[in-house]
């Protein structure tokens, strides 16, 4: 007898966010950290272009992709990394993916408010 209502795994959507986030952070975070972590605070570049970019609709889409996907990847990896060091957080999945979801909503509303 085939179970018509199997328990669905959260893995496909979570893995989608995790792998997208891994690639986005892999391709863009090194240069973003270079820009925001070194060039901007030491006055090597001006903030004007970044501010102008953030007010353009395309810039807002880029900011959403750059902030949201990597957070899902980071929290997914922390969730699994905790098991690697034998720290079993109760309801870990709910907590880590819940935090990622809350963060995503905050980012979304903040980007709309720019």
């Amino acid at each position, binding site marked *: 007898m085939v179970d018509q209502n199997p328990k669905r795994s959260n893995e496909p959507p979570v893995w989608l966010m995790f792998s997208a*986030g891994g690639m986005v952070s892999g391709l863009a975070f090194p240069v973003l950290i270079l820009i925001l972590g070194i060039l901007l605070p030491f006055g090597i570049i001006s903030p004007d272009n970044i501010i102008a970019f953030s007010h353009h609709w395309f810039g807002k889409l880029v900011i959403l992709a750059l902030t949201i996907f990597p957070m899902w990847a980071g929290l997914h990896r922390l969730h699994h990394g905790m098991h690697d060091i034998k720290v079993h957080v109760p309801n870990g999945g709910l907590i880590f993916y819940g935090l990622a979801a809350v963060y995503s909503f905050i980012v979304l509303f903040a980007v709309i408010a720019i």
Partner: protein
Amino acid sequence: MTTESKRNKYVREVTPTWWKSWSFYKFYMLRESSAIPTVWFCLVLLYGVFCLTTANGFVEKFIPFLQNPVVVILNLISLALLLLHAFTLFQMTGEVMSGSLGLKSEVIQKALKVLFAIVTVVALVLVCI
């Protein structure tokens, strides 16, 4: 009727420091630790977005925050670990995807490195010009 084994099942003990025994595992843990700076930098970006929502907030709040020595040091550590994450990711993705894409893993790895260079150059050109 089922027969029950009288022997105790052997379960190998795993300690929280299991990964310290072999350099391969140490490198795995070092790579996995890059998840922490990923989360850190996402929070930095969120703060930047918050500062962008108010007039002059980016210049008056976000840049002074980025100039804090602790933030500079955390970002330097993040840069090093995210570079390690990026290049090991390109390596792994090449190996994993070569089966499904039917391409040699070296081709995918090289393409990802070229894409990384393009993203880096485009981002630097966008902020500088």
